[in-house]
C-alpha cells in the first residue's frame, strides 16, 4: 500500500506540495488529475527521490517502507518506478547498455546473479515486440533523437523489464496519438496485479479510457481536493479545473 500523509515539499524555497494525502492499496489504479502547475510532477519526483525537492513535512511509505529515507536507487530497487513526463536523452549510453545495467542493479539488490546476455536479449526482444520498438532503435543512445511517442514507449519497456510494484505514470499520454496511447496503456495493464499499485497522473481523461482507474483524485495547489470514482474524470472533462483552482486559492 502507498500511504502519503500530509506531505509538504518545496523547491527553491517555494512550497509546492502543501499537505498532500493519498492512499493507494495494492492491486488498485488511482488517477491524479489536476491543472498545470498543481504539483503533479513534483509529487512524482518527491516519491522517486529527486534531490532538488526538499521535503519539509509529512510521510510517504510503500508497503510500510519509508520512501523518504531512501536514495532514488533504493526506491527503484524497492519497486518504485516513475515513467517520466519528459524522458531524458542520454547521449553515448546505448539503450541496451542502460537496460542491462538497470536490470542487473535490481537483481543484485535481490541477491541474484547477473542476467546472462542471451536471457537478457530474449527478455528485451519479447517486450520490445509488444510495444512495437525495434531492436535497432535499442542499439542507439538512450532516447537520443527519438520522437515523443518512442520515448514514452521506451519508458513502458523499462517498466515491463524491471517489473515495478509501484508505478507512477506522469502524463504518459502527453504528445501521443491514440494508437500510441493504446500501445503504452496495454503495456501498463499487463503489469497490473494484486501486488501492484498504479498512480496515473494525467491532465486529460482520455488515457483513463485505456487504463481504467479505481479511484480518481483531483489535485490543485499541492493538495487533493476531491476524490471519487472513474466518473469523476468525465465530469472534469466537462467542467474543467477552473473551480478547483479558485477553491484552492
Amino acid at each position, binding site marked *: 500500500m502507498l500511504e502519503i500523509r500530509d506531505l509538504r515539499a518545496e523547491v527553491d524555497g517555494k512550497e509546492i506540495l502543501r499537505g498532500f494525502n493519498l492512499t493507494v492499496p495494492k492491486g488498485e489504479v488511482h488517477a491524479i488529475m489536476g491543472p498545470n502547475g498543481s504539483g503533479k510532477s513534483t509529487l512524482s519526483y518527491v516519491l522517486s*527521490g529527486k534531490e532538488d525537492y526538499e521535503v519539509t513535512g509529512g510521510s510517504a511509505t510503500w508497503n510500510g517502507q519509508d520512501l523518504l529515507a531512501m536514495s532514488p536507487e533504493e526506491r*527503484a530497487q524497492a519497486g518504485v518506478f516513475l515513467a517520466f513526463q519528459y524522458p531524458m536523452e542520454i547521449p*553515448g*549510453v546505448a539503450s541496451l547498455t542502460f537496460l542491462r545495467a538497470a536490470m542487473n542493479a535490481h537483481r543484485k539488490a535481490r541477491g541474484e546473479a547477473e542476467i546472462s546476455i542471451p536471457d537478457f536479449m530474449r527478455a528485451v526482444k519479447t517486450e520490445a515486440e509488444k510495444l512495437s520498438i525495434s531492436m535497432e532503435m535499442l542499439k542507439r543512445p538512450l532516447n537520443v533523437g527519438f520522437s515523443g511517442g518512442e520515448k514514452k514507449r521506451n519508458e513502458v519497456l*523499462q517498466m515491463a523489464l524491471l517489473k515495478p510494484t509501484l508505478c507512477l505514470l506522469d502524463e504518459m499520454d502527453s504528445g501521443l496519438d491514440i494508437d500510441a496511447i493504446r500501445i503504452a496503456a496495454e503495456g501498463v495493464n499487463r503489469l497490473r496485479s494484486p501486488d501492484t499499485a498504479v498512480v496515473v497522473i494525467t491532465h486529460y481523461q482520455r488515457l483513463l479510457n485505456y487504463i481504467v482507474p479505481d479511484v480518481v483524485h483531483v489535485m490543485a495547489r499541492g493538495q487533493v481536493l476531491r476524490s471519487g470514482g472513474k466518473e469523476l474524470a468525465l465530469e472534469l472533462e466537462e467542467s474543467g479545473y477552473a473551480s478547483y483552482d479558485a477553491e484552492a486559492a
Partner: protein
Amino acid sequence: MTIHQAITAAATPSEQRFLDLYASVCGRLPGADVPAVRAWREEALDAFAAMGVPHRRVEAWKYTDLRALMTTVHPLGGIDGSEQVEVIASIGRALANIDSYRAVFAGGKFRADLSTIQGAPGISFAPLCSKLKSEADAGATLAALPLPERDIIAALSTAFATSGALISIAPGQKLDRPIHIIVIASGEANAYALRHAVTLGDGAEATIIETHVGAGAAQAWSYTALDIGKGATLKHARLTQSDAALHLASSTVTLGEGAIYEPTHAAIGGALTRSEGTIRFNGPNARTTYNAAILARGHSHVDFTLVVDHAAPHCESRELVKVVLDDRAKGVFQGKVAVQRGAQKTDGKQMANALLLSNDAEFDSKPELEIFADDVVCGHGATAGQLDEDLMFYLKSRGIPEAQARALLIAAFVGAALDTVDNEGLHAALDEKVAAWLAAK
C-alpha cells in the same frame, strides 16, 4: 663547440641540468663516435639551449610551466644494460592481445625479443640506433630526420635519442593489421628519449597504435614525424598512461594531396603529460579528424596542444576533445587552426568539452584561429561543466547505483571521442582502460 659554450654559459639551472646530462652521456650514446650523429645531436642541443626550458611567459606554454613543473632531470636510461619487462603486465592484456605488428621499446631500447614487426610484409622497419653505427648509414638516415623549428620536445628527444621506430610503408600497401608501437618507460627514476619516423607511401593504408606507459617517476621524451603520402590513409591511436610519470611528446604530421589522417589520442593520468603536435596539409583535398580524451585526477597535469596548419586549399579538419578532471587535476587544450594565404575552401572546426568532477579541478582552453584566406569556414567552441544531475537522477531512478551511474555518464562523455576507433580490439581495450580508471576511485 665555441658557440655551444657561449650558450651554455648563459643557461639557467633549468637548462644546465640538461646540458650536464648531455655532457655526462654523450660519449656513450648510440653513434657517439660517428661525427654525423654527434653533429645531429648537438644541433638539437644548441636549439634547446637557445630556446631554454619554457615557462609560463612563453605563450605556447602558458598553462604548462615546464620550468616550474619539471624540477629534476633523471639519469638517461637506455644506454647500458637491459631492463626486465613484461609487456602484458605493463600495458594490460587487452592492449597486448591486439593482433598487430609490434615494436617494443622498453627502458629506452628497442626490444627485438618482444617485437614482431621485423620482416612484416609491406613494412620496412629499423630501430633508429641500428642506423647510427656508420657515417654512411647515419648520413642517409639523419638527412630524413630534420629538427623541427621551435620545438623543445623534439630538440630534447633528438639530442638524447637512444632509439626509436623508423617505419616506412610502401606506396599502395594496405596493411592487414595495425602496427603497435609500445613504449615502456620502466625505470623508476630514469629519463628516456626516443625519436620515431613513419612514412606512408602514396595510396598506402595503415593503422598505428602507440601505447606509452610509464612506471614510477619515469620521464619520457619523444618526437615523432609522420609523413602521409598522396591519397594515403593513416589511423593513429595514441594512449599515454601512467601514475607519476612525466611524458613530453611532440609530433609533426604532413599530409599529401587527398590524404586522410585520423588520430585518436587518449591520456590517462600521469604527473605531467604534454602532448603537442602539428598536422600540416601540404596538398589539397586532404582531411583530418582529431579526437582526444583526457582522464585525470589527483595532481595530474595533462596538456594537449595542437596546431592544424592549412597550407593547402580544400582541406578539412575536425577536432573533438573530451576532458574529464577530478580532484586537483589540471587539463589544458590549446588548439590552433592556421589557414595560410591561398588555402581557400578550408573547413576547420574544433570543439573542446570538459567535465569537472571536483571544484578544485581546472580546465584551460585556448582556441586560436589564424586566417590568411577569405573563402574559409572555421569555428571553435569550448565548454566546461559538471555531470548533469537530471541525467544522474534518471539513471538512479532505474535502480542504478550512484557510482555506476556516474561511470556510465563519464564513459559516454569520453566515448564521443574514443568511439570512432574502428579496430575492435583497440576499442575494447580503450573501453577497459576508461572503466578501470573510473573504478579506481
